[in-house]
């Protein structure tokens, strides 16, 4: 169904771009002949292309924002291009053909920053943007070599979701901030009931190593040295290995189930079905958990004994393509997109502005509070910002993590990953 709507959307976008191309030609033709007729507004319409990876409800919200922007800027048309799963490929192809969208969602700045417009001169001193109102630290993720390439549009930290009903049924007290991994594992064991195919926790079959960094940092490890030059002794350190081994161990002792493999249900779906009691993720599934009628609670990540909890931020930002021909208009759009008005419309994202959070009292809401506590705990730099070849190294690291959830020893798998990655660090 999702695929189908994406297909319809893509077809529409294609048809639309074909049509705009036509009107563009008309403009030229009319211009030669003389003044366009007064009623023909399309001749003056400027089209701004905006690329997003979102689908479904989030996409609908973005289209609404685009419409509001059009209403406030007569003569402007915002063409929302929803690339969904094909986002990276479309981006690469667009940049490669020097025909990228004007404005786009972006997170992988190390890969794309050479094709993006530095925004420092736009952002600094722009009263409307009011940079100081953003959560500090969010800009770091979009900054490379001192150049700012994106304006934070949304972010999420990762928390533990828990199903209150299952906790009640098993007579386990709800987890509280400040809990440890020992608490977590004990709870998971009590919440597991193989006869009902019910498990304490779900481990993803395919993990994004980025998301695991919070665990690794919490145990005092990291994937790569702070200068981004060494992985030996970091990626395969005891701290890193132990943090990842945790998932392997929970799968082995049966208190966690492997989810989201090929032909398997996703962890979110199983959680919605009330068959796993705890699930670890960002803000994304919260709304769907509520809609599924799950009495869901959130709590910050557990701590490793005696060590501070660390979090990882997943951030999305808006960028302008270097090859864009209407950067001023693009900047206006970005500013509107991160304005209080638009932020309030985007309910699937956590607000990036302090003023909006205060106004909506989001950080008072017990369901939302853990995301902000975790944000305060997210001050480590993710590995992909530290090494330009992280993509390659990550390929090996992902293989190692996959091996661990399939039963290998984390230390061995990570040693191998370090060995296989060394050539990218030369």
């Amino acid at each position, binding site marked *: 169904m999702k695929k189908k709507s994406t297909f319809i959307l893509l077809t529409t976008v294609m048809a639309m771009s074909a049509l705009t191309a036509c009107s563009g030609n008309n403009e030229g033709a009319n211009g030669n002949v003389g003044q366009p007729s007064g009623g023909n507004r399309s001749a003056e319409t400027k089209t701004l292309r905006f690329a997003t990876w979102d689908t479904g409800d989030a996409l609908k919200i973005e289209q609404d924002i685009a419409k509001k922007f059009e209403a406030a800027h007569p003569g402007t048309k915002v063409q929302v291009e929803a690339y969904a799963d094909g986002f990276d490929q479309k981006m690469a192809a667009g940049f*490669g053909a020097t025909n990228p969208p004007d404005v786009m969602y972006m997170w992988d700045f190390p890969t794309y920053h050479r094709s993006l417009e530095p925004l420092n001169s736009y952002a600094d001193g722009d009263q409307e943007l009011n940079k100081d109102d953003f959560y500090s630290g969010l800009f770091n993720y979009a900054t490379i070599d001192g150049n700012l390439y994106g304006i934070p549009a949304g972010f999420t930290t990762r928390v533990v979701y828990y199903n209150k009903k299952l906790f009640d049924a098993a007579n386990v007290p709800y987890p509280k901030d400040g809990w440890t991994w020992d608490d977590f594992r004990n709870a998971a064991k009590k919440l597991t009931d193989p006869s009902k195919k019910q498990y304490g926790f779900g481990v993803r079959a395919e993990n994004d190593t980025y998301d695991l960094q919070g665990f690794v940092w919490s145990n005092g490890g990291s994937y790569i040295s702070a200068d981004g030059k060494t992985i030996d002794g970091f990626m395969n350190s005891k701290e890193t290995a132990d943090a990842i081994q945790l998932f392997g161990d929970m799968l082995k002792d049966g208190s966690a189930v492997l989810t989201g493999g090929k*032909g*398997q249900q996703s962890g979110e779906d199983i959680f919605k079905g009330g068959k796993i009691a705890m699930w670890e993720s960002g803000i994304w599934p919260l709304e769907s958990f509520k809609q599924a009628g799950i009495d869901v609670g959130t709590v910050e990540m557990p701590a490793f004994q005696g060590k501070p909890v660390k979090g990882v931020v997943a951030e999305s930002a808006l960028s302008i393509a270097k090859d864009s021909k209407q950067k001023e208009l693009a900047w206006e759009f970005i500013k509107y997109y991160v304005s209080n008005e638009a932020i309030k419309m985007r309910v699937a994202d956590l607000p990036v502005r302090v003023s909006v959070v205060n106004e909506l009292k989001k950080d008072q809401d017990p369901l939302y509070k853990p995301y902000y506590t975790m944000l305060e705990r997210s001050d480590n730099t993710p590995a992909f910002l530290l090494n330009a070849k992280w993509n*390659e190294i990550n*390929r090996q690291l992902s293989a190692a993590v996959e091996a661990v959830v*399939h039963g290998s020893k984390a230390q061995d798998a990570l040693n191998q990953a370090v060995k*296989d990655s060394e050539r990218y660090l030369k």
Partner: protein
Amino acid sequence: MAQTYRQTAGNNAASFTLGRRRRWGGAVPYLFIFPWIFGFLVFTLGPLLFSLVISFFDWPIVGQVHFIGLGNYASMFTDDPLFWKSFGVTLKFAALFVPLNIVVALGLAILLNQGTRGSAIFRTAFYLPSVISGVALAMIWSWVYSGDYGILNYFLSIIGVQGPDWLNDTKWSLVAMVVASLWGQGSMMLVFLAGLKGIPKDLYESASIDGAGAIRQFFSVTIPMLSPTILFNLITSIIAAFQQLTLALLLTGGGPMKATYFYAMYMYENAFKYYKMGYSAANAWFMFLIVLALTFLVFKSSEAWVFYEGEMKRKPQKKSKSGGKVKSA
């Protein structure tokens, strides 16, 4: 044909001299196949040669292009474990898939050739999977193989066997891929069937008069008479095995733990996930050379086992040769 054509051309352009008319006439056939030639040059030969060129470059989609000579090929062989890993997976897959594919297709063709009632229906049914697009096929198999809800494990549970989670089990996922790939053997079966129909009945008759049973007839008449067809199917099977991508991409994504990480998938990811166009082109050319070499070997070996009706004379020659060997030994 040519006569008619010259007349029409003459009628249409009476002012042409004879020489010009001839030259013009020579070009017309090319004009007719021009669309195909154009398509071939622009969409096949052009990209083919271009891929050879970019295989000597460090060619990211975003960023600077550098000439690095044989650098891509060197790093492929010397320090990319994934290259060898994926190549090994593909070899393993080919070793399982190619023989099975031929046996299954031949077996089905022989069954269909028995002329039982409703064989047309069976023929359609067996061919049907080849008509289904690879994506739909992958969807069907992902349901069949699903560990918890799959129909395969349901049937196994009826006979008391707890089936594995096929696509997520490192031991079984490659086997699962082989079986799923076998499902699309329809066209190969049809080629075999056509070959079987082409075997003269009198050969079987004389064989049975000589006292040959069904099995003896199969090995002494069917197989030799079918050997050119087997050769053709063997080569197309090998090529298909090396190109297997769709199923891996959609069913397993190369996992679990790279157990189904086919070479084609490795190539695909290098190009479209990591945007290393030059490196991926080098991968592709290596695969091309391997397939070329294998095809060449199969052709070479075919002299020994493929039997063409027109080559009756060569058989006695060979016999005398081997006879000579026996003597000298």
